């Protein structure tokens, strides 16, 4: 009989875990529901992609213009009939005081709104080249140096960072990665919503569950006074290995449930059907004056997959960290406190390191720091998000935690169980 199966059962026995899962899913669905008002508008993006493809070039631009003109004409016919007035731009309709939705039927309002959205796309397409030609990353480097008070070596690292990012930007422009249709980031902020608001919320939710479960399962025998019976059995201290396996499996289960259910609802609410292949560095995805420049060409689908992989890796790290603490401490409440303390310390340290020390960079290579900005994973945003940030953090912590786990297990093997 596999002992880890029994250990895995313990992970999900606690009613607290089930209640928290339900509560967290409710929070996630509530967040999606609150954002769902724009779902109809987002459908227009998919319609445009379906009609013209997402690659922006002269031919596509011309077709879109013609489509927009026809839409605007239809809209003006409607407004002439309703208000005795026509508009040069659909957007002007919404800025005028006489706009009263009650005069229009839902269908009529939809025609005007859709025209305004198409107009938004058409107008933004005209700005793409100009926006990217005006990007000066050396200025951004200077701004960052001033903003973070960097000097000496750290300032040099910053300048070097932006040179590399500039190379990537040139490559991106050359390949036309930015010239793809996507939800308009300035308006809908879908990247921030999915990867910052929702994903970060899920990261913390799963982390809470993982820490609770791992602390619970690992200390279970000591908490229930069954340690003498269990560790004197044939399996002996190897039971701790079974607990590690069970904890890792529980983490994968919890991550799958929270991610699976939440993302299923998310993609049912928001239609991404035609957008999976669009690079994340698309101009339309930008939400701020500084664009999202991914370090590699990452279509949305691949980007999401990568984020999910990093999500799970971080949760596995939290599992092993909690497990190692629990083997040493053996009291689940103290384990939770120790984990919180470690979390706090890992966030505190980069903030107190002198700005002139390169430690300001490498102290951020922790899973605790990493999970704060999932929307910037694989993206060159500022000097604290270098190209190697994700994989270096993953490799360093995999090695570190492998060593910690081995040391912990060797220690437990020689431990006096009283």
């Amino acid at each position, binding site marked *: *009989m596999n*002992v880890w199966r029994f250990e895995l059962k313990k992970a999900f*026995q606690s009613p607290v875990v089930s209640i928290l899962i339900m509560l967290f899913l409710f929070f996630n669905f509530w967040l999606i529901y609150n954002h769902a008002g724009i779902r109809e508008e987002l459908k227009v993006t998919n319609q445009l992609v379906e009609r013209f493809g997402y690659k922006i070039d002269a031919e596509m631009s011309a077709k879109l213009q013609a489509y927009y003109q026809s839409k605007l004409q239809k809209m003006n016919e409607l407004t002439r009939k309703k208000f005795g007035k026509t508009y040069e731009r659909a957007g002007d309709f919404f800025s005028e005081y006489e706009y009263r939705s009650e005069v229009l039927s839902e269908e009529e309002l939809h025609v005007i709104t859709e025209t305004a959205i198409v107009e938004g796309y058409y107008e933004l397409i005209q700005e793409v080249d100009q926006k990217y030609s005006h990007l000066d990353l050396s200025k951004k480097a200077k701004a960052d140096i001033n903003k973070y008070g960097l000097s000496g070596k750290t300032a040099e690292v910053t300048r070097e960072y932006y040179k590399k990012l500039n190379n990537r930007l040139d490559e991106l422009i050359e390949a036309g990665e930015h010239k793809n249709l996507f939800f308009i980031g300035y308006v809908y902020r879908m990247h921030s919503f999915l990867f910052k608001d929702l994903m970060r919320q899920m990261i913390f939710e799963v982390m809470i569950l993982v820490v609770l479960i791992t602390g619970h399962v690992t200390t279970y025998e000591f908490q*229930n006074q069954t*340690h*003498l*019976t269990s560790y004197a059995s*044939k*399996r*002996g201290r190897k039971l701790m290995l079974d607990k590690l396996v069970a904890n890792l499996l529980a983490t994968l289960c919890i991550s799958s449930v929270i991610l699976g259910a939440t993302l299923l609802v998310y993609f049912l609410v928001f239609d991404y059907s035609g957008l999976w292949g669009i690079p994340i560095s698309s101009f339309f995805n930008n939400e701020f004056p500084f664009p999202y420049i991914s370090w590699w060409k990452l279509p949305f689908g691949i980007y999401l997959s990568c984020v999910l992989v990093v999500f799970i890796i971080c949760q596995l790290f939290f599992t092993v960290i909690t497990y190692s603490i629990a083997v040493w401490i053996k009291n689940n409440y103290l384990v939770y406190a120790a984990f919180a303390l470690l979390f706090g310390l890992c966030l505190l340290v980069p903030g107190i390191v002198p700005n002139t020390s390169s430690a300001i960079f490498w102290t951020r290579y922790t899973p605790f720091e990493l999970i704060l900005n999932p929307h910037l994973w694989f993206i060159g945003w500022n000097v604290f998000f270098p190209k190697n940030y994700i994989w270096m953090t993953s490799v360093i912590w995999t090695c570190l935690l492998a060593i910690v786990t081995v040391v912990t297990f060797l220690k437990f093997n020689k431990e006096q169980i009283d």
Partner: protein
Amino acid sequence: MLVVNHVSKSYGKFEALKDINLEFSNGVYGLLAPNGAGKTTLIKMLTTLIFPSSGEILYNGTNITRLGEKYREQLGYLPQEFGYYKNYSPKQFLAYIGALKGMDKKVVNKKIDELLKLVALEDVATKKMKKFSGGMIQRVGIAQAMLNDPKILILDEPTAGLDPKERVRFRNLLSELARDRIVILSTHIVSDVESIANEIIMIKDKQVLYKGSIDEICKVIAGMVYETSIPYEQAAMFKKEVFSLSEKQEDGLLKIRFISKKTPEPTWTAVKPNLEDVFLYVYRDDIQESSAI
């Protein structure tokens, strides 16, 4: 054969056991000593939960730490404070213990049914243990220790919480089991081992004081145990001169059983010493200390 070879155990500067030498072959061994004498420390070393500071424990000639799983699969152990999962039924809990003991699922299920019947818990086999009495829990503990049909059965205070009827049944069971295995029964209750132990091991001052059959051990105080009846008013004075073992009221007098090394008086009747007399005599200082506390 299980051999404890020059084993000492220290916790920092505190020495719990000193140079223990013991040999166990098939039979019941009563490990008899007051609480805090080091019985549990010795047992935890025999179960590999703690390790000797010096010396070694050998099973069939090989160090038990080196044998690891191969040794522990021969082992059945009931700890003094037997922990259990409150929300599990005996069946679920024993299935888990069976998995820890590396047993096949089918074998475990069959064995669980047998053992629950043996310890008279078959009616509550699927009930959650949180509502069980101390005696019922102890019986689950006994069942889990015997689950793998162990060659070495170590029971630390196994009769705690059992009623007199259950105690008798348990003793009979152990006698039967001990025919082809080592049964080590640690207790401070003399009656638990008196009728069934082939050998008694008494630990005092961190060392083995006596190891032998009950008759051999009783020889320690042979010719020193007497009974007499005295008026109550003389009792205080009398007890200053002898070591009182037990007292009871009989026909308006105090009937006292005692140990004395002096020449017996005519009113004293010599009696055959029993294990409890030896226990009380050997541990008189410990018992007085704990009574004072």
